[in-house]
């Protein structure tokens, strides 16, 4: 201890040259920037600048331009328009409901698969890979398979062939809104793609739980459901909170599978339209209306932040 302090005094007394000091001890600072710098720069250029820019644009009438003239400043006009736009508000509402449904379902399914896979004595690696594999599949590819082969509306589609075995009529899954079969298509695709990923997170969480706890509980007579409720769930809490937050954000940011399953040459239908898809057509399609697009993005961010905060609060009080 005293020796280290003495060494510290020695170095400070010697005052090495500026370049040397900037590089840090053992060139630590230099290497920090060599490794982090490019990514930080990328983050700055491709994430932070665009975010700030689109917030800036949201206060302007910015059509077909990303550098509007000062006289095109419209204050909060774009925000007023977006909040008064029934299509946008409707998509926010739809996705609040969607989140309320998909978050618990994905959570429960991934937790259940994780517990089952973690308990399996045989071929655990195999089952783990099988469930995780869909995560490696592109959303676009999965969406196209769901749309064109599994849930194709013709009698030869996979789902319709199965129905035909039971003598049921052919269903044009994506062409009808009553009943809304398209939700079945989208949600099954989404669950297939996502459950594996969250399962892995849960497995990691489960492995951190000390097995002696279960042994102790078993001696006290807590096995099965009781052990799950009083040991697994509470000890998984950090993982659960992280997974829930990720799921929540993911639900509001839905884009890929929705867009690829439901959009047609004519655009996107007015149902099951994620806010991001609506903004995509507003700001990035031929509309090129960056003012309203930016305002919509800020509103969406606000909604997600609010829900996430409320959620965090809920969990804290539940503790």
């Amino acid at each position, binding site marked *: 201890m005293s020796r280290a302090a003495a060494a510290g005094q020695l170095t400070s007394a010697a005052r090495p040259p500026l370049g040397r000091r900037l590089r840090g001890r053992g060139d630590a600072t230099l290497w920090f920037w060599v490794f982090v710098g490019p990514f930080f720069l990328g983050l700055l250029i491709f994430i932070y600048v665009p975010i700030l820019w*689109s917030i800036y644009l949201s206060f302007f009438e910015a059509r*077909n*331009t990303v550098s509007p003239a000062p006289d095109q400043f419209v204050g909060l006009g774009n925000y007023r328009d977006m909040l008064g736009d029934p299509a946008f508000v409707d998509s926010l509402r739809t996705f609040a409901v969607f989140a309320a449904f998909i978050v618990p379902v994905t959570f429960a399914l991934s937790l259940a698969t994780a517990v089952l896979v973690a308990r399996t004595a045989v071929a655990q690696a195999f089952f783990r890979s099988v469930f995780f594999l869909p995560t490696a599949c592109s959303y676009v590819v999965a969406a196209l398979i769901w749309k064109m082969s599994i849930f194709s509306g013709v009698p030869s589609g996979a789902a319709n062939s199965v129905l035909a075995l039971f003598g049921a009529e052919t269903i044009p899954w994506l062409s009808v809104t009553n009943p809304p079969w398209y939700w079945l298509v989208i949600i099954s695709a989404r669950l297939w793609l996502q459950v594996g990923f969250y399962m892995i997170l849960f497995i990691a969480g489960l492995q951190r739980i000390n097995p002696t706890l279960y042994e102790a509980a078993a001696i006290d007579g807590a096995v099965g459901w009781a052990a799950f409720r009083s040991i697994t769930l509470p000890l998984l809490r950090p993982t659960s909170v992280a997974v829930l937050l990720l799921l929540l954000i993911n639900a509001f940011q839905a884009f890929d599978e929705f867009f690829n399953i439901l959009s047609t040459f*004519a*655009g996107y239908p007015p149902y099951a339209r994620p806010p991001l898809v609506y903004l*995509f057509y507003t700001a*990035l399609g031929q509309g090129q209306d960056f003012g309203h697009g930016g305002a919509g*993005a800020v509103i969406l961010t606000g909604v997600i932040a609010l829900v996430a905060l409320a959620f965090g609060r809920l969990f804290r009080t539940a503790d």
Partner: protein
Amino acid sequence: MSSTSPLSTALTRRRLLTLSGGLAAAGALAACGGNTGREGATATSAGTGTGTGGSGPTLNSWYHQYGEKGTQQALEKFAADYKDAQVKVNWKPGDYDNTVVATLQTDGAPDIFEYGNGPTIDMIKSGQVTDVTDLFGDTKADFNKALIDRVTYQGKIWAIPQVLDAQLLIYRKSLLEKAGVQPPKSMDELVAAATKLTSGKVKGLFLGNDGGAGLMGGPMLRSAGLDLLTADGKIGFDDPKAAAALGALQKMYADKVLLLGAPNDWFAPDALTQGLAAMQFTGLWNLPDISKAIGDDFGVLPWPAMSGGKDNVTIGAYGACVTAKGKNVEAAKKFVKWLWIDQTDKQIEWATAYGFHVPARNSVADKADKLKSGQAAEAVKLIKEDGFAQSHMLWSPKCQTAFNDAMSRIVKDGAAPAAELAKVKTVVEAELKRLAS
């Protein structure tokens, strides 16, 4: 996390801009290295080719990726025949429309680009494209009038129609004969025919996998003698007849006489050729595939009129546009005039040698051999008599989104047409007001 990702719309756009900037830079580099007049041969595989014969300024021209074989080579050959400039042909796969609108805001904008039905009103209003009226001279009257009107704004013409495409009703003769149905000449007859032709696995009519919600709004309004916007740019559907017309479509959907969920959408001929539907509203471009698959077992018809309305065929065209901020605006204008107005042989080759389209100039269309007989000749006649542009220049993307939403609710959800159209009217009124200011 929560604060960064929702803005990925902006992120994507920035990436797009960067990418297109990068592409443009790469293009410029390629141009530096290839000043030998032989670049065409080497660069074609990368999607860029240059005319070999030209001298003078280098012009960048953009085209979307045509599906027909030989189209890219044809354009490169045309460019090579032009002597007053080196014209680079850039073949753009992927989301062409959005790539163009994004790139027009950068220095990487091409000198010449094609765009569906000419430039958008926002491109014109923000000064991104140049007026090409003076290139037409006497030939203006020779172009299909509906198309010229479509690319005209405030008395100026903003694009040269390259080639004309049409959407019309095609039916299987044998299926109609078997059911004892005459080719429908009116909307009532069409509805009756579709009902009668629906049996077992064959449906009467195919209007797209969404039951025509995305495609048939305009044609239905025209059947009733109305339109999305009137010729002078006013709302054209504020009429009880509009609700009645859309109601007819709604009824066909509800009666299950429309084919839904076909493997390919309305723009491909599969539903008709595979016998999934007896009639289909589709593009003229499918005629070669249809005759290859089913011989002459088909006929073409306009979308039929309701009482007091009009038979109609939807027409559109890729228009050659010239960017206003390019370095060689005059040279670019000269080239598009040369190719799309003067070189009538090339126009016939372009329209009929690779795919199946109609030259945009009436006199040229009359000269094309492939269009002189059979159903093709009938289609050309329908285009001249019943051709209506797909949409008015002032019908902005926002109007289209609102209208599509309404159409989907009317057709699929069975919503009341009048109430839905009233909602669209509010949006369109605001858009027209914005565009007028």
